[in-house]
């Protein structure tokens, strides 16, 4: 009896060892990334398509922007994703290179009976007032005066925000910070902030879900999530004083004037851009990689994938309601790869 038990234990141990050794070898053949959930829908499409065409497997885990930065700094992934760009000096200190991958918009969504998508008009000040808890009821003078002709209910407003650190929150609070001085003083910009009111939901899907379920709620999500869940979005007054609807056209308008060439480490925030047609809460999502790569072959595989995304990913991005990075910017990024990415001192991208 004892002997059989020992024999079994030995056999199990050997099996476990074999598995433990074989798994990392298998995983090394693919590329791993982690970070922002904001671009996850489009990354998933690109990675699937690229795998079909080339057989190279790229995996991306949407764990949030803060998580993406933490994982790449710990070198547990090959690339990180973040919606909140890192500043030039911070990048150099960490030995990282950052470049924009795709552009998208954040839209406020709401659940008020009788008011259809795009019908609710809000100014930046009122939006900040609602999310900071200064405006508590849907029939508050500040909202009704912007929306004559609609019978807004005497219902309390339930603010829905993200429960975890998020690049979407960063873009949204960055915008409110720019347009409202009281927001700037009391709350500020961050991937996670100290919300004075509301409930927290996890991820873009979580916020969409809560807004759908709670009467009288208002939240903010990446545009694709509003479209997928068929949630009504607000019409927002932009810097030029025009009320605009979110969508690829107004995102494109906001991204068009961006001056990437003079942005250190591509640090550029596209909120509150000028232009009559510009949607005010637009931002690029970024990829982070090490300037000094360990494995030349792997580094080349990775840059080839990003190159393919710039070259052939535009159509797919538009289908998913994102705005592709302009060709001129993609060329700038390629130049950055050639100038700055090295593996053991050798150039990786030519």
């Amino acid at each position, binding site marked *: 009896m004892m002997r059989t038990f020992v024999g079994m234990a030995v056999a199990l141990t050997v099996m476990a060892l074999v598995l433990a050794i074989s798994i990392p070898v298998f995983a090394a053949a693919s590329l791993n990334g982690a970070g922002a959930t904001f671009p996850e829908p489009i990354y998933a499409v690109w990675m699937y398509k690229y795998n079909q065409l080339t057989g190279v497997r790229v995996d991306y885990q949407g764990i949030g922007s803060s*998580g993406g930065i933490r994982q790449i700094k710990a070198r547990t992934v090959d690339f990180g994703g973040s919606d909140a760009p890192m500043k030039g000096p911070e990048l150099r200190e960490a030995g990282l290179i950052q470049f924009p991958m795709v552009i998208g918009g954040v839209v406020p969504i709401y659940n008020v009976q009788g008011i259809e998508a795009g019908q609710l008009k809000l100014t930046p000040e009122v939006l900040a007032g609602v999310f900071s808890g200064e405006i508590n009821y849907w029939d508050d003078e500040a909202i009704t005066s912007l929306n004559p002709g609609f019978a807004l209910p005497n219902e309390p407003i339930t603010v829905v925000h993200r429960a*975890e650190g998020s690049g979407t929150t960063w873009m949204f609070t960055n915008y409110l910070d720019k347009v409202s001085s009281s927001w700037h003083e009391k709350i500020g910009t961050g991937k996670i902030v100290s919300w004075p009111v509301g*409930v927290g939901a996890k991820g873009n899907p979580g916020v969409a879900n809560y807004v759908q*379920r*709670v009467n009288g709620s208002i939240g903010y999500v990446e545009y694709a999530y509003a479209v997928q869940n068929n949630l009504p979005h607000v019409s927002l007054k932009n810097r030029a004083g025009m009320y605009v609807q979110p969508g690829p056209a107004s995102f494109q308008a906001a991204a068009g004037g961006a001056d990437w060439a003079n942005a250190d480490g591509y640090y550029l925030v596209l909120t509150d851009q000028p232009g009559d047609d510009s949607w005010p809460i637009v931002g690029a999502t970024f990829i982070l990689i090490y300037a000094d790569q360990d494995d030349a072959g792997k580094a080349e595989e990775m840059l080839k994938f990003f190159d393919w995304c710039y070259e052939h990913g535009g159509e797919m991005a538009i289908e998913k309601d994102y705005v592709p990075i302009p060709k001129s910017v993609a060329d700038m990024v390629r130049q950055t790869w050639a100038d700055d990415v090295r593996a053991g001192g050798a150039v990786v991208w030519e």
Partner: protein
Amino acid sequence: MTDSTAEKLSVPPGAPRDQSRPDALFKWLTAACSLVVIVIMAGILFELVRNSGMAFREFGFSFLTTDSWNPILSDFGAASSVYGTLVSTGIAMIIAVPLSIIIAIYFVEVAHPKVSRLIGGAVELLAAIPSIIYGMWGLFVFAALMQTHVQPFLGTHLGALPLFQGPPMGIGMLTAGLILALMVLPFITAVTRDVLMMVPPVLKESAYGVGSTMWETVRFVSLKYGRRGIVGAVFLGFGRALGETMAVTFVIGNSHRISASLFSAGNTIASSLANEFNEASEPIYLSSLFALALVLFGITLAFQTMAHHWVARMQRLEGGDR
């Protein structure tokens, strides 16, 4: 195999085989396995203390008393999470404990054995449902029910109390407490039922024999005999409610605020960890989350110790009559 075993066993009685070696091996093997538990426990505690050191050095004792949770200003306090953990668990226990004991009494004393088996199976099934399912059901079905029916009802009839004021959102502290009650109910019921079944029939028969009613028999014989076991059952449920994560995260509303109203959103230690751990990039933020975990560890340990003492005290008072 059989032959050789038979051969070994047929050692003549005058020459006993040497059994000390296999026994020693067995002793060491079992000891080593139990040691693993202690090592893991110590390892977890060590890591929690080590990683939370920075937060405790920075905020000191006020970490436990302030309810500020501001990642931008790097200002953290555990009060709102501790409050939410205790309140949601409290709601769960207030509802689940009496209900479970009544159900268990029904199973053992009142119901026909066939009915008892049938409903007993259903209760056990309830215990086997993964907590994420409770969370999904809680958000999609139960929260909607709370919003349209339960909360407006409470607001109209008990709205004078600060507990039931505020907009009915469906999600919030009360919903989380009710979901927790549902989750711990099967555990407390199952253990209480087993405890009550162990009451010797002769005791109950004598009670009926001297003319007790069913209620008197339950009250003065079964519950009295089994009360230590029932306290154990309650603490089992309590421990589960205290650390429950997924289901609570779905319905509690995840907000770091202390509010008198049970309708408003709150959070628990476990839900804060689940939401924010992946995302915490600043060292002090991460350390504060570790400190939260340590606080939860401390709360669990404190209640566990209390339960032990209480059971021991009851044993002393009863004069060890079991």
